[in-house]
């Protein structure tokens, strides 16, 4: 130990005096050489000859000095500094190269950093929960219906909770939307009804006060509430005496028992929790899957085990309750993997960003190779002076490392910009429901990612050129003297291979991005098919149960509101509906057709349904194909009527006229009320990710009222101009009713599509970047190739070649490279397209337009990139060219 210490001390001492050391070593060697010369002279040599002989015998002095010095110094550290110093010098000497390389890298690294930041926030750590990877969603599935995960019915949840052995705990919750009144303005807000173990399971306790008790899950005991920190601050002035106070939700009284700590907002966007106090009857409900279920795994239990267990339990339930549970399975998925589509989008973006960086690296590798030609002499001299190949490679790699670190730092700046763009790409009322969105930022994890990516790219773009140029042919390089080195056939071939790879990559990325963007465009277009969202003002109102206890009052409100709104000047028509078309929300139900037997369990007739007011189809502009739409006469007491969609008509009434047939919503038993079909309306897509149009059943909200409704007001002029009058009319009916989600219908859809549009915009950005980089890359190689052939071209011209011959020569070469790259890129693009069509709805794998147009685009880019240097070549004056060497 003391040995090591004293060694370290001696080294430090040396380091402080290394100039002196150099001088002394020099002197020592001079002394040695003189002694040797003297020895030679004594052996009878001429003095001069004796001296030369001594020098020869001594060997490579520079090397010896280096080696002796390395003996002392902190070798790796010092050579690193030396290499770094050298690297900085080289980069400063070529500011043009450095600038282009750093910008190229910054774009590539920045794109990756930004997308990774989003992925990190949304997928890796969307919730700030302890042991996040032990938390799962529990879903029920129906294999007959494509295993689409659905929520869990209350009775199934209760059984699961009682019988399972793999979870440390299970909690169920459902979202509801309530009017909070009592303090200040009435406010519409999301609240969540939860089971007692909910908070503890997620690893949270109330900041003060308490959470719910198991007995508060009983109906009648559940009039207690826990507030979110934000709500408490905003609405109750952070009053610590709030515990025990009474608040009013949908005009029912709740006692505040606790406040959650800051930052807890699960489910996303919720600021108020009440117990899931279902009555006995509701707890026995097995059909309607109304609960979302989260669970924490027991320590040591694997995800596969859990899946097997819930699968077994679900099978047991299916056996016990075939009426409701036949074919129903169950599955779990990690809590942080709650959004499948989001993950598909993010991985596609990550892949695209990776391509961009790869292409950037290829470009820089190419530039390095071009530079290597002009540096081959430097390398030769260094080798002659005793530098080993390893030293040269290390030095060149250090240079690349410096470049990539610079690129990484600038890439962070690019990432900041991109992240701003991404954050601004989604409307605020949407992002509050995206777990993790608020924590999108460049944090330590992202920084480490950026560093690793930078280092990795330095190897990608630095290694080949370094190995290439560190192996110079000494004789050739030194003999060539001051002449510019042709670069050697190997190097040229390598550069061409890189260009071919670059074009292939670019084609694959462009086609992939093109297919995706086209698919999205198709989806966005489809989202507004079948109706007209322009010039329609939409707003939402939910009638509180306390004042609208019975259905008659709800119906009366909707009827009066519709009459008042329709009568407004500047309003063409007005209506109400339980869902807005194009907003991706719907209700689904089993339904029956009069005179037909009920299908066996598991094969029920299923349709979306919505309750709408009179004039709905006229106001939203859905064509009525057959029969009529609902009128002001379709009220309670009048014959019950229904309108069905074209798809429903086609699927369930294939060869008959549906008009006059009767349908019933719900299970076959008990016998319910039948609605007579009076009209067939055009199809409206229900959900943007549906693979096919789903059937839809419309019922009049005067006959089946729904307290939750949107009003749609079609204006002849600017829709927003009608808003004050609309508000006044509603207030005249009920001045305590909050109106919310006030938007033009077009905007509702645009907001809904904002995510797709953002992904598409990023894809287009990456595609454009790729195209630019590839063009610059081809241009660089061609320009260099032409400059290397100036002399040859001069000779050709002197021998009578016309400019168009030269043009053809150069363009032919660049076209050949492009053709080869495209030939390799096409199958890659095809495979990519097929993979994307499988993962993403709306993408068509074999879209000839996309393939043809991007192939042509890249060919054009390659031609242009070849044309510019080629034209320059035709301007070569043969005399100058011949003299240029």
């Amino acid at each position, binding site marked *: 130990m003391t040995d090591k210490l004293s060694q370290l001390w001696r080294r430090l001492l040396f380091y402080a005096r290394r100039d002196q050391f150099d001088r002394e070593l020099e002197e020592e060697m001079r002394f*040695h050489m003189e002694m040797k010369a003297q*020895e030679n002279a004594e052996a009878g040599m001429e003095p001069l000859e004796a001296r030369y002989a001594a020098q020869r015998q001594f060997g490579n002095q520079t090397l010896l000095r280096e080696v*002796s010095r390395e003996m002392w110094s902190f070798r790796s550290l010092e050579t690193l500094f030396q290499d770094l110093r050298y690297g900085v010098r080289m980069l400063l000497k070529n500011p043009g190269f450095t600038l282009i390389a750093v910008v190229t890298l910054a774009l590539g690294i920045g794109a990756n950093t930004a997308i990774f930041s989003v992925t990190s926030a949304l997928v890796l750590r969307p919730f700030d929960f302890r042991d996040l990877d032990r938390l799962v969603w529990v879903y029920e599935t129906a294999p007959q219906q494509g295993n689409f995960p659905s929520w869990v019915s209350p009775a199934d949840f209760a059984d699961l909770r009682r019988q399972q052995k793999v979870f440390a705990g299970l909690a169920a919750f459902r979202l509801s939307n309530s009017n909070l009144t009592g303090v200040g303005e009435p406010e519409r807000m999301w609240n969540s009804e939860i089971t007692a173990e909910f908070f503890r399971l997620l690893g949270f306790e109330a900041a003060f006060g308490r959470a719910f008790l198991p007995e508060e899950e009983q109906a009648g005991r559940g009039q207690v509430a826990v507030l979110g920190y934000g709500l408490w601050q905003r609405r109750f002035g952070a009053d610590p005496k709030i515990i025990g106070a009474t608040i009013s939700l949908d005009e029912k009284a709740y006692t505040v028992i606790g406040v959650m700590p800051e930052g807890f907002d699960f489910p996303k966007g919720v600021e108020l929790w009440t117990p899931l106090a279902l009555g006995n009857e509701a707890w026995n409900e097995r059909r309607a899957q109304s609960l979302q279920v989260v669970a924490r795994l027991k320590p040591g239990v694997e995800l596969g085990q859990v899946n097997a267990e819930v699968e077994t339990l679900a099978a047991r339930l299916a056996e016990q309750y075939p009426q409701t549970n036949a074919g129903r399975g169950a599955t779990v998925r990690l809590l942080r993997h709650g959004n499948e589509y989001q993950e598909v989008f993010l991985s596609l973006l990550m892949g695209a960003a990776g391509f961009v960086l790869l292409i950037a690296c290829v470009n820089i590798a190419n530039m390095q190779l071009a530079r290597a030609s002009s540096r081959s002499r430097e390398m030769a001299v260094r080798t002659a002076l005793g530098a080993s190949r390893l030293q040269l490679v290390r030095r060149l790699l250090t240079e690349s490392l410096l470049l990539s670190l610079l690129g990484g730092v600038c890439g962070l700046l690019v990432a900041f910009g991109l992240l701003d763009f991404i954050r601004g790409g989604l409307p605020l009322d949407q992002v509050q429901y995206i777990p993790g969105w608020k924590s999108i930022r460049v944090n330590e994890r992202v920084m480490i990612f950026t560093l690793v990516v930078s280092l990795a790219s330095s190897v990608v773009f630095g290694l080949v050129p370094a190995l290439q140029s560190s192996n110079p042919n000494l004789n050739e390089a030194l003999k060539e003297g001051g002449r510019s080195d042709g670069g050697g056939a190997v190097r040229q071939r390598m550069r061409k291979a890189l260009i071919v790879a670059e074009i292939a990559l670019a084609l694959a990325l462009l086609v992939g991005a093109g297919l995706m963007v086209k698919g999205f465009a198709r989806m966005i277009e489809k989202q507004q098919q079948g109706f007209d969202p322009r010039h329609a003002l939409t707003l939402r109102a939910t009638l509180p149960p306390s004042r609208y206890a019975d259905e008659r009052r709800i119906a009366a409100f909707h009827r009066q509101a519709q009459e008042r709104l329709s009568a407004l000047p500047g309003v063409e028509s007005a209506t109400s509906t339980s869902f807005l078309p194009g907003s991706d929300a719907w209700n689904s139900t089993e339904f029956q057709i009069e005179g037909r037997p009920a299908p066996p369990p598991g094969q029920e007739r299923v349709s979306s349904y919505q309750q709408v007011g009179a004039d709905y189809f006229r106001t939203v502009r859905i064509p009525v194909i057959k029969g009529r739409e609902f009128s002001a006469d379709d009220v309670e007491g009048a014959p019950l009527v229904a309108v069905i969609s074209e798809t429903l008509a086609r699927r369930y009434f294939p060869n008959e006229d549906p008009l006059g047939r009767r349908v019933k919503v719900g299970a076959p038993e008990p016998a319910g009320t039948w609605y007579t079909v009076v009209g067939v309306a055009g199809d409206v897509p229900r959900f943007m990710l549906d693979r096919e149009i789903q059937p839809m059943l419309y019922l009049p909200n005067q006959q089946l009222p729904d307290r939750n409704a949107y009003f749609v007001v079609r204006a002849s002029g600017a829709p927003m101009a009608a808003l004050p009058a609309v508000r006044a009319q509603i207030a005249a009916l009920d001045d305590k009713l909050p109106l919310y989600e006030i938007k033009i219908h077009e905007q509702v859809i645009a907001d809904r599509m904002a995510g797709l549009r953002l992904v598409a915009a990023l894809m287009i950005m990456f595609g454009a970047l790729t195209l630019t980089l590839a063009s610059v890359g081809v241009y660089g190689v061609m320009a260099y190739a032409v400059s290397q052939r100036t002399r040859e071209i001069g000779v050709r011209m002197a021998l009578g070649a016309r400019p168009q011959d030269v043009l053809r020569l150069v363009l032919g070469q660049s076209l050949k490279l492009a053709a080869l790259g495209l030939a390799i890129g096409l199958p890659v693009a095809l495979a990519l397209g097929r993979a994307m069509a499988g993962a993403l709805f709306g993408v068509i794998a074999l879209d000839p337009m996309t393939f043809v147009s991007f192939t042509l685009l890249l060919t054009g880019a390659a031609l242009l990139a070849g044309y510019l240097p080629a034209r320059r070549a035709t301007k070569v004056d043969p005399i100058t060219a011949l003299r240029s060497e």
Partner: protein
Amino acid sequence: MGNDAKKTELVPGTLEMLILKTIERNAGPMHGYGIARYIKQISNDVLQVEEGSLYPALQRLAIKGWVKAEWGQSENNRRARLYKLTPAGRKQLKQEVADFERVLEAILRVVQPT
């Protein structure tokens, strides 16, 4: 190079021992050139120490604290860097020689006809 004697590669790992031994034999401090020449002479030109390895080896010994370098006068009154053994170096030499003899003996036992 002007010398017909067959050049023999040093047994790996023995250079440091040879240097230490050379300095020990020579009562006073020695310079690099002297060490090389001495090894060559004493071994009848069989062992040749390359300058390219001699000086790095001397640095190594100095780092380890087994020799100490000082500027002094050479035999022909020139300024020269002279190396002398430290007590630690002396101990190290003893150790290395012992090890070496043990190994050599073992090798001889293997290669000598019985």
